[in-house]
């Protein structure tokens, strides 16, 4: 569904990501893991036009979309949920969801909001609250919910588990699973290697801007050398 080939990406004239290729298929969850500063976010942002794409090609549903702008990417069905500042703090929960549906002209927005509330009953209870007053977990839920409101075929989640409590973490993970079950392709960028690999089918491990390992999440997780060398997990 979304394929990126031989990507070089960065900011200004600094190249952070070197020759990385990834792909995600329909109904699939992939994880991009790696330590802080390994270029995970830069890679994803460059595909959508938030960061500079220096080299490589991007395909979406068989068509080339290299060099697309963020707003056009949304219109095509690629949704991005940033790690930080991922809600409109001065808008209410309900308004945040409406902003998610900004580009949509179909009449099913209301039904979709109801659907989102079914998936996230926690948000429905706080629909009139300023997003800036939500707790960390609620905020992350709202961020993902806003991303879902664009009606995406693929959703890119930038560190959805960062700085969440264990309880919120498992809650968010269960929501992500439900989203996958609905048929949306998911790309999770995470530092929390164990959780990310557990909940994805395939994974890419990035170190210093290059992809050092890719493959089936379960086999990576059970490979002792990989665990020790790249994932910082005990064997």
């Amino acid at each position: 569904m979304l394929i990126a080939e031989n990507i070089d990406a960065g900011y200004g004239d600094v190249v952070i990501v070197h020759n990385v290729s990834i792909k995600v298929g329909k109904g699939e969850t992939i994880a991009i893991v790696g330590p802080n500063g390994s270029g995970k976010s830069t890679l994803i942002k460059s595909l959508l036009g938030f960061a500079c794409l220096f080299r490589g090609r991007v395909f979406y549903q068989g068509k080339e979309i290299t060099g697309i702008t963020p707003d056009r990417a949304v219109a095509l069905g690629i949704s991005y949920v940033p790690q930080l500042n991922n809600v409109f703090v001065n808008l209410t929960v309900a308004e945040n969801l409406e902003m998610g549906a900004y580009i949509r002209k179909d009449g099913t927005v209301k039904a979709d909001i109801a659907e989102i509330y079914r998936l996230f009953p926690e948000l429905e209870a706080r629909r009139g609250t300023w997003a800036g007053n939500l707790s960390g977990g609620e905020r992350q839920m709202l961020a993902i919910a806003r991303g879902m409101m664009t009606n995406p075929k693929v959703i890119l989640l930038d560190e959805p588990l960062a700085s969440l409590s264990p309880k919120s973490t498992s809650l968010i993970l269960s929501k992500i699973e439900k989203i996958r079950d609905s048929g949306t392709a998911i790309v999770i960028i995470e530092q929390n290697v164990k959780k990310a690999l557990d909940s994805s089918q395939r994974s890419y491990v990035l170190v210093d801007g290059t992809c050092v390992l890719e493959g089936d999440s379960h086999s990576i997780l059970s490979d002792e050398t990989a665990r020790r060398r790249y994932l910082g997990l005990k064997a």
Partner: protein
Amino acid sequence: MGERLPLVIYFLSMVNWAQVLFNSSVTGCIYLISAVGLTLTYGLSKFPNFAHAEFMTLGAYAGYFLADQLGLGFPSAFVAAFIASGILGALSYRGIFQPLAKRGASLIHLMVAAIGLGFVIRHFVGELWGWSPRSFKVTWSAFDIGIVRVSDLWLWLIFAALAMAGLMHLLLTKTKIGKAIRGTSSNPELALASGVNINRVTLVTWLVGAALAGIAGLFRGAGTRLSPMLGWDILLPTFAVTILGGIGSFYGAIAAAFIIGLAENIGVVFLTSFGISTEYRMAIAFLILIITLILRPGGLARMFR
């Protein structure tokens, strides 16, 4: 000071405080209309547009041209002020500030450009209508409501401010573009990720903001006199309202406009009673501005969003 004190107390006891309160809301209404546009464009474009002053000036003169010089009557002045300043604001954004921002101009460059634009408009107005002050031929009838002396211009102003506040509230909370304006102002990157066309949203904001500035200028000109410095003279309190209210916050601006209106009018009473020049009226807004920046640079926005 010592022998003056009884005099001051006597003076203060003679003050018609109901009148002061009414005057305060009149002042607040003008500041509100002028500050709404400034706070919204400041919030979206992230720089203080000093040429906002000249958006007010042009509005006042455009209204004067239609109402007095062409003799179409005062109501036509509103239409003229709204349209002339609105177009000017949209053109300024499209022709100057958007290209500058696209070329990566620094904040200081944007501010210098705004001052430059202000000079062009101000002296253009000076060239067309001259530098000596003018005034509207319309005379406003004054009458008493209880112990408060009002004029129909001021009642119109209060009505216009209330109508503007109501319409802006509906625009910002009920329409798609309004929510996009608020959202883009606080989080432009996420707005982009939601598919918002930021350029269009910003253009609409500049248009509406400048048009409202034109209305504020018109009221100021009708209440006092028209001069090319008209906008500049109320730019400082407009900035004080914007910053006290919190940049980009419409609701903060409403509260701040009335706080500053009240502070100025009460301040003038005290200045007069102590025998100090009322020219220092402007210094009151300045003082509030400085205190806000030092103690609470975010202004009141957190209370109102």
